[in-house]
């Protein structure tokens, strides 16, 4: 590991002390019988695997398999049950900790904790170990030099004095990685173990390639990388070994070359399956003639829509249909609804409602009969400090007017009607909205949009953070809107909800429309399988 010379003088001594331990026979990170739960059924059940130095180890699993719980255990946020063992370079961790870098694991979280309008060098400086002038003054000159040397040494072509804001997403991920490497050095851990938690989920295709290449370079320097992802193709591209989790258990751990895609999917969703079946009789590629034949009766149609992540997506939803858009969680799914309502500007392509091309903005979309329910109810939907009735009626006040003024009686009647119909509990319209449970907040938000009886209803993750009984209610309301003649488009990675509601599902992968599942009902597995297969195929 010839990286010490890229670091500050002070770090070099510590670095060399760490180097003694390097021994390829000792795993860098060993996880042994880790068990963990939150009161209910255990989330992790005797998870064990080893990560070798100088290798990239993939951690795969479907949503809810326990990947994030494991990352949080390594980050010191959760504490596993007694009997669980985590060993670094042959040394067992015995104490609880809050700074993982202190004990020798660097964590690059999915949400990169940068101050966007500060420079790279300021963001990289980790506070405790600034380059000093004398005792207490920070020497920015030395700090910049050290950071620039490190950035250059790791093959990044950027000026550390640039603002983080101006960096691309992959550069940010790289800088975040360098920051944890530096922190590891500063805590005296010359041998690096770095956990990358879904670093590619916000990246475009070319940026992903760039980051994966760069990761190989880091591993070549002796760093042990644990790469968390649910994209098969990336794991196959970059990893030496893989551990697959399903329902909190390790179903496979070993070289990636020893398993083919079919086997990986099988380990992930736990059923022998035929990947080809997903593209069999039930599904087919989009084809333009199909879309055009459906145009007349379609409530919503997208034609060759392009955004930043979304690339040439065409789809249609007829009046009376519930249609899903799914894939693996990523920025493309997040962008799609925002392109439709015009919150983000489409680079190319068009949105049609009732067969007519419409140019929408958030404030005009309700006027053409489109209602959007965001997946983030507290940020995008509700006024948490407002009363339930105020949240229910805010978008329909013009209909509750008598003699030119809003009639409180009409308003409360309308709110009580919605509270009854959508089973919002407690049923008091004067309740502060923020005191409601997540499921009831979500129903409040949905009820407001559904009260418009929209021609087109665009739902994003409608059951995120919602309890089971509310899930069922929400599925029923969704279908009711369709039965009233609305076209409903559900953008979600909740395959269970999609399976319960949709008659057709478009699978996106890296912003492109892949296969389409036609003629539901589908099972949850059908959808999972199609999403995984699609992500594996995508170039």
């Amino acid at each position, binding site marked *: 590991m010839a990286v010490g010379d890229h670091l500050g003088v002070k770090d070099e001594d510590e670095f060399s002390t760490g180097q003694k331990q390097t021994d390829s026979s000792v795993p860098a990170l060993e996880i042994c019988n880790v068990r963990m739960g939150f009161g209910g059924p255990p989330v992790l059940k005797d998870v064990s695997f080893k990560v070798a130095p100088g290798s990239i180890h993939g951690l795969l699993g479907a949503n809810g398999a326990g990947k994030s719980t494991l990352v949080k255990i390594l980050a010191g946020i959760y504490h596993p049950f007694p009997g669980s063992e985590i060993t670094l370079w042959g040394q067992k961790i015995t104490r609880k900790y809050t700074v993982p870098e202190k004990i020798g694991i660097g964590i690059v979280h999915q949400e990169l904790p940068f101050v966007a309008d500060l420079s790279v060098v300021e963001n990289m400086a980790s506070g405790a170990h600034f380059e000093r002038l004398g005792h207490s003054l920070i020497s920015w000159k030395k700090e910049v030099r050290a950071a620039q040397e490190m950035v250059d040494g790791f093959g990044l072509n950027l000026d550390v004095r640039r603002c983080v804001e101006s960096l691309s997403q992959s550069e940010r991920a790289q800088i975040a990685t360098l920051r944890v490497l530096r922190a590891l050095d500063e805590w005296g851990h010359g041998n690096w173990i770095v956990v990358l938690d879904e670093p590619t989920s916000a990246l475009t295709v070319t940026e992903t390639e760039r980051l994966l290449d760069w990761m190989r370079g880091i591993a070549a320097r002796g760093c042990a990388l644990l790469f968390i992802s649910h994209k098969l193709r990336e794991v196959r591209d970059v990893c030496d070994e893989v551990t697959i989790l399903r329902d909190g258990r390790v179903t496979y751990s070993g070289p990636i070359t020893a398993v083919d895609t079919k086997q990986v999917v099988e380990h992930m969703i736990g059923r022998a399956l035929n990947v080809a079946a997903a593209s069999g009789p039930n599904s087919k590629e989009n084809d333009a003639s199909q879309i055009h034949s459906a145009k007349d009766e379609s409530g919503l149609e997208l034609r060759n829509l392009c955004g930043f992540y979304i690339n040439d997506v065409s789809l249609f939803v007829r009046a009376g249909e519930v249609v899903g858009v799914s894939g693996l969680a990523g920025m493309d799914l997040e962008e799609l609804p925002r392109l439709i*309502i015009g919150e983000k500007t489409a680079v190319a392509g068009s949105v049609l409602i009732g067969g007519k091309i419409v140019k929408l903005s958030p404030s005009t979309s309700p006027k053409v009969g489109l209602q959007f329910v965001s997946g983030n109810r507290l940020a*995008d939907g509700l*006024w*948490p400090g407002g009363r339930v009735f105020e949240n229910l009626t*805010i978008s329909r006040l013009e209909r509750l007017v008598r003699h030119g003024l809003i009639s409180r009686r009409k308003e409360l009647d309308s709110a009580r009607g919605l509270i009854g119909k959508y089973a919002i509990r*407690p049923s*008091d319209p004067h*309740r*502060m909205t923020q005191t409601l449970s997540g499921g009831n907040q979500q129903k409040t938000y949905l009820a407001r949009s559904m009260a418009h009886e929209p021609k087109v209803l665009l739902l994003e993750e409608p059951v995120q953070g919602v309890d089971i009984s509310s899930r069922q209610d929400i599925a029923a309301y969704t279908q009711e809107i369709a039965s009233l003649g609305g076209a409903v488009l559900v953008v979600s990675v909740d395959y269970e909800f999609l399976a319960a509601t949709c008659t057709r599902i478009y699978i996106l992968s890296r912003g492109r429309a892949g296969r389409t599942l036609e003629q539901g009902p589908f099972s949850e597995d059908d959808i999972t399988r199609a999403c995984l297969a699609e992500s594996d195929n995508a170039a």
Partner: protein
Amino acid sequence: MQPNDPPVEQEGGVQQSEVNATLSNAAKSIVGFLRKQPSNSQGSKPGEKKELHLVSRFGLLLVLAVTYVIFTIALPGEFLTSGNTLAMLDAASVTILLAGGVTIVLRLRDLDLSFGAAMDLSATAVAVLAAQHHLPAWICVLVGLGVGTGVGIVNAILIVGLGLNSFMATLGMMTIIEGVGYGISGSQVITGLPSSITRMSVTEVGGIQLAVYYGWILIAILWVVYEHTRFGRYLLFIGGNARAARLAGIQVRRTRALAFIVSGAIYGFAGVVLVGTLSAADPSIGGQYLLPPLAAVFLGSTAIQPGRFNAIGTLVGAYLIIIISTGLELIGLASWTGDVFDGLALIAAIGFARLSGRGAATVSLV
């Protein structure tokens, strides 16, 4: 649901000797008026919580009454006189107009510090035109309203159009407007206003100056606007979650801009009233009208609809402040204590607002 004609207007034909009774009647009828509000605001809560809720809604009114009684006892024959009561009503009228105007902006969770200066510039402009250029009263009044509206438009451009922070932008505007006021008045107090201007404010109806009624009418109008118009509703929703408001189809920018412009027009009107009651314009008086209205608004947010900037609460807050400052003055404290009191009142007001406003308008901008 409350009657649409506000009770304050029912106080019309009262004899001057009965002014004290008038005030207490007004208080009573306001309370009665508010009771008809959805006082089941917490709906099906058990009785004791309801009582707590009543205390939090009407506590400030109780404080007002207690303060009134204390000063009446402490200052026998001085405080509880019709002369003093009328003086307090007069003194509060401009504060109420300004405070009412500033609630519009505060409901958006924006801040406006330019109101005192805008009012003063409007008053100075009216005085210059009426006393020095002898223009007809209606032109002067229009110019006064226009000055305030103009300030509101500039505020809207800076804050909504350019996206500047409202605190800093209106702080800058305040100083600019003050400077302009000194410019157009030659830094002089302008006196000798024609009676056509003063008459509009000091004419007495039922023994009370018109200026006092203007404040009450504004509060009544604001109450109706806040509770029963879309504009009023959108203000709070935008203040509570601007993103959600935009996605719900509300024209957020238009609403915010309108809020600054309407409040500017109200400051302009306050200037016309001020120049009428003083029969003079002083370009340096704006600063005195900065803190008391803010204190009134924040005190008001602890009452009637706790946690929200509301019209009637603001009225109560303004009267509480004027009662205390008048009482302290009558007790004979040195004049510098007035400034100290204004500052203390503002800090205490935002302190109470913080303690009581668990919900909506917990005033994060202060």
